[in-house]
């Protein structure tokens, strides 16, 4: 078995006449921390939506451990072990912090309707296991004290963290983080990146993260894919990407010759 976890084979996404993503190819190895960067409107979130089944690619396919994810619904892809967070936070706002995490654990529930109605032993032990696991996950980001508060009552930064906790509760193989540090200040960002590195170790996770800010990903990513206008313009280690003429052009433009 190869060490490639997630692979995109020539995935293309068309919206009418617009090619949002054009024949994109990349491989993410097991345990890798990869970054997907690019200027505004480069198609980064569209790529995430294709990887998680929100959009079906117009052509090309996505493979997880050499198995095609073609035609699977988002929930099925989640069951296979691909999870994500959202750029514009999508928590279950009116539910408690704990419920948010518990919902992500639903796919691992062992009891059925019958157990629920009769409150059997099976129901109680499984429910207890779920709750304990959820609390443990919340502890990573020190959210356990707020477990019974509604998700909207959390400050912005903590809502982003809760999204990560919720994604972890699905027991993923790979977690896709869509601008996890958006709206955070420098020290918060730094702290978040450390935590991401830590959970990756602890859960033996593979991480793919979108970041807008190039400097930020340089520190932690091992492999960086640069997207511009839906096309991959560069891929490789941070040092390589940093010095690529194409990347600098995409971000800063090019000087016109007189």
């Amino acid at each position: 078995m190869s060490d490639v976890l997630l692979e995109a084979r020539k995935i293309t996404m068309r919206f009418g006449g617009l090619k949002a993503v054009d024949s994109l190819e990349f491989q993410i190895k097991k345990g890798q921390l990869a970054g997907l960067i690019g200027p505004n409107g480069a198609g980064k979130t569209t790529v995430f939506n294709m990887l998680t089944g929100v959009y079906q690619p117009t052509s090309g396919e996505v493979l997880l451990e050499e198995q095609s994810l073609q035609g699977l619904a988002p929930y099925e892809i989640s069951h296979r072990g691909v999870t994500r967070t959202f750029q514009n936070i999508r928590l279950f706002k009116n539910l408690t912090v704990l419920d948010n995490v518990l919902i992500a654990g639903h796919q691992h529930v062992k009891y059925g309707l019958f157990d629920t109605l009769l409150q059997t032993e099976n129901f109680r032990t499984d429910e207890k296991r779920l709750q304990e696991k959820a609390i443990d996950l919340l502890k990573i980001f020190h959210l356990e004290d707020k477990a019974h508060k509604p998700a909207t009552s959390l400050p912005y930064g903590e809502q982003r963290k809760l999204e990560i906790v919720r994604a972890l509760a699905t027991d993923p193989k790979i977690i896709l983080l869509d601008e996890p540090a958006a709206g955070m200040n420098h020290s918060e960002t730094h702290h978040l990146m450390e935590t991401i590195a830590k959970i990756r170790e602890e859960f033996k996770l593979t991480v793919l993260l979108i970041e807008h800010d190039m400097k930020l990903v340089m520190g932690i990513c091992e492999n960086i894919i640069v997207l511009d206008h839906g096309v991959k313009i560069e891929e490789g280690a941070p040092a390589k990407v940093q010095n690529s003429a194409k990347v600098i052009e995409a971000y800063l433009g090019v000087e016109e010759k007189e």
Partner: protein
Amino acid sequence: MKAFKNPALALLGLCLLGVALNFSVNAYIQLILLFAGVNCLLSMSLNLVNGYTGQFSLGHAGFMAIGAYFSAYASTRWSFAPSSLLVVQYFVFTLGAGLVAAVAGFLVGLPSLRLKGDYLAIVTLGFGEIIRVALLNMDFVGGPRGLSGIPGFGSFLWSFAFASLWIVICFFTIWRVMHSSHGRGFLSVREDEIAAEAMGINTTRMKVKAFVLSSFFAGVAGALFAHFTNFINPSSFTFLQSVNAVIMVVLGGMGSMTGSIVAAIIITVLPEALRPLQELTGVDLRMVIYSLSLVLMMILRPKGLFGDMELSDVWRKYVRRSA
């Protein structure tokens, strides 16, 4: 508050209430109370779809009709038990009524629950009407004449006990489901479908599940209604009946079980309680006051009586704190 946790205790309490009512109030009020029981079942079941799962269904009367017709038809044609075991027979038929309605709910829900919001409301409204019109044209259930001579329970006490039994079953079924992972799945669909899918929730399946469970209890409510009135025809299950159920859910608070119960009782009792006023003034102000109170209610408490809280939460929040 212990009755919230123990079904047997709740049933016992309701039956004792039934005994008290049996001797204290007249037959007219007793009948209204039985209708309140039917409406409790309707609003609790609709709350599961409209309140908890966030899907706007406007066809609840259709499922009620299916249940009512099944139980009515069965008890006039297929009576199997000796008179001493009639209660068992009624239970079997109401259960059957619920199951038939649940199957109908599944058939209606599967295609229509892919739609959202207003579209779903219109489609369910359409299905509700289709069921009614179909019954109108079926000769073996009497067509527009309806079914008459449906056997009742004989006494108020039996009727009330039977309604109580189903209310307790319905309440605890929904309550327990909502306090399990399945119930949290329903809530996640209401909160954010895209996020729910990404977290591994099969949202279509969740919606169909909620819809089927809801239809089941609507069918049971219909069956009880048939046995209490002894006569049903298609015009007992018009669009207005569906709207009435929605009003009860909204008034009680979307996603509040006890709210649904309280609202169902208010909505059933209020128009009747206002009747003496008509004799006094000579004008029928009943519906004017009824509608006005609904309008005022929505202005003053837009989230319904209890919002998404339960009676027990309200108790904890206001009563105990002030004590």
